[in-house]
């Protein structure tokens, strides 16, 4: 019994010390009130130096957290454990967040730098008049291919992937909308087509591609494509530029049938505690020089047209990552299809994987 009591005392003491340490740690990180801003962003999606200079210039302490899927982010915002002041969801997720009434409207008068954003990235269908969201980065879905391993073969359309010579050479991104969307695009249907006959047709066509598919992967695809394990990948543009940075034999192409155009945007969730600081942060990120610095680090495409002049010319003039308005014309933005239709796509995708 004596021993038990002693044990209990020791445990309580340890708990006490841990609690004290946590409160000290939180205080030193600025969790204990004061002028703080909690930012919730994708992993490796901001230049840490930009955060530092923001803290220096404004005196606001930034608490930075990351997520890796839109859905995980939405769940955390919904459940409201942490009060995020800024989040960076993709366009279809913004529609969902709006439906669930989880966003605060953005006061444009507090964001004078909004004028720096290229008009073609403003007032898009997922958020008319940018009431709730401000563009952060944008990009496309396309084909990255190893021209050296393919003996100089040219690829410029989705249908090129059906070439029997490419047996076991393709790595897909493990994501239903991208892959089903590509099937639809290859038949010249819209990415957002939900006609059951068209979906079935796309599915049948994708199944006939199966012999060429080596694997469907997450972030591992970057490593395998750079190392030459497979010679073709269907990936997001930013991943492509990262892979090409590691292996110069790779090239990125936007298929001529069309593809997906996506936008990640800054929003202020309803849980926000420091709405003023959130506006200040958004405005700061839109400053041309800051945006240029951030873009060089992240290597996705910036919607900030004033920032382009501060960036290396070869980056800005690269039509693969900064396609012209004529090129983006044939690209489509994902619409929020609603749970039933998304579920149908997901089922077809699972079936495709099992084939």
């Amino acid at each position, binding site marked *: 019994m004596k021993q038990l009591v002693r044990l209990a005392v020791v445990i309580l003491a340890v708990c006490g010390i841990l609690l004290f340490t946590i409160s000290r740690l939180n205080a030193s990180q600025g969790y204990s009130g004061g002028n703080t801003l909690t930012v919730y962003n994708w992993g490796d999606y901001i230049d840490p130096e930009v955060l530092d200079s923001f803290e220096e210039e404004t005196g606001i302490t930034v608490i930075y957290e990351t997520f890796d899927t839109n859905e995980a982010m939405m769940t955390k915002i919904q459940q409201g454990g942490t009060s995020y002041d800024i989040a960076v969801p993709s366009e279809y997720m913004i529609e969902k967040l709006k439906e669930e009434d989880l966003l605060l409207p953005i006061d444009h008068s507090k964001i004078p730098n909004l004028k720096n954003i290229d008009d073609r990235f403003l007032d898009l269908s997922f958020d008319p008049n940018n009431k709730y969201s401000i563009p952060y980065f944008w990009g496309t879905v396309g084909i990255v291919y190893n021209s050296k391993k393919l003996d100089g073969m040219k690829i410029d359309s989705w249908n090129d992937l059906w070439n029997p010579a490419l047996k076991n050479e393709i790595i897909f991104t493990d994501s239903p909308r991208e892959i089903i969307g590509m099937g639809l695009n290859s038949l010249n249907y819209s990415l957002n087509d939900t006609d059951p006959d068209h979906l079935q047709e796309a599915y049948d066509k994708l199944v006939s591609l199966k012999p060429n598919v*080596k694997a469907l992967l997450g972030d*591992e695809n970057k*490593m*395998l494509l750079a190392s030459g394990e497979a010679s073709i990948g269907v990936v997001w543009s930013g991943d492509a530029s990262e892979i090409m940075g590691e292996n110069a034999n790779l090239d990125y192409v936007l298929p001529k049938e069309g593809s997906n155009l996506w936008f990640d945007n800054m929003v202020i969730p309803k849980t926000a505690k420091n709405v003023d600081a959130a506006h200040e942060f958004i405005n700061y990120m839109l400053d041309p020089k800051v945006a240029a610095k951030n873009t060089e680090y992240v290597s996705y495409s910036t919607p900030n047209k004033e920032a382009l002049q501060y960036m290396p010319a070869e980056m800005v003039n690269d039509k693969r990552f900064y396609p012209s308005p004529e090129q983006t014309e044939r690209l489509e933005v994902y619409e929020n299809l609603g749970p039933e239709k998304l579920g149908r796509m997901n089922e077809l995708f699972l079936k495709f994987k099992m084939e």
Partner: protein
Amino acid sequence: MENKTTRSLYMIPYVIWIAFFVIAPILLVLYYSFQDLNGDFSLTNYQNFFTPIYLEMTLSSFWYAFLITLVTLLFAYPTAYLLTKLKHKQLWLLLIIVPSWINLLLKAYAFLGIFGTYGMANKLLEAVGIGSRQLLFTDFSFVFVAVYIFIPFMILPIFNSLDKLNPTYLDAANDLGASRWTTFRRIVFPLTIDGVKAGCQITFIPALSLFMLTRLIAGSQVITLGTAIEQQFLVTQDWGMGSTIAVFLIIFMFIVMFATGTKRRRARG
């Protein structure tokens, strides 16, 4: 009397644990499984489960789990048998267990490198003269890595029951003229069947819901019920359907437990 109160006092942590971390989650899963996409009570998820897609998925989950368990057993039994015959058997056993302390994800990534086109396995095949071939993202590599991961858990219970086996039985069998094969078939194996069953349970049940290896090693070309649950929750955000699959997974696991557990109870009772 006092004995009784202290005993019920000791029960408190156990009861709290079971209530919060076993019963409550299962009830929640059950509750969600009866909700359709609009949050209304319905049986549509259960109807959906009996469509070809999910039935095929269930079958393929069972098939791979069966294959993994069988191969694991085939390697684990002789290994465990050999271990009991060694001089420093506890040390050898420890060496087999040590790799299971390493994080599963790390091991999976290591296999990405080993089985890759330019990996060690292919270099070895070339050196032997077989020539390099596609290893990664095949059924073979999936079963191989799964077996590698589960094998310590299969060896342990079998080793324990072999180690407890009274050697005088073997001497008696020998004296009575039984061949070594007969001794194994009629005496050693039946006496260690409990260890085999425990090992099979520990392997088969997690193998049914493996989901990370299906992506990393099988390149998402093997789909188990675990993968389907992950997708329903994270991609489709259809928690109802995800929960329904989980309910069936729980039912299947209970069936497996009962199928492999009854005899032991009868033997003791």
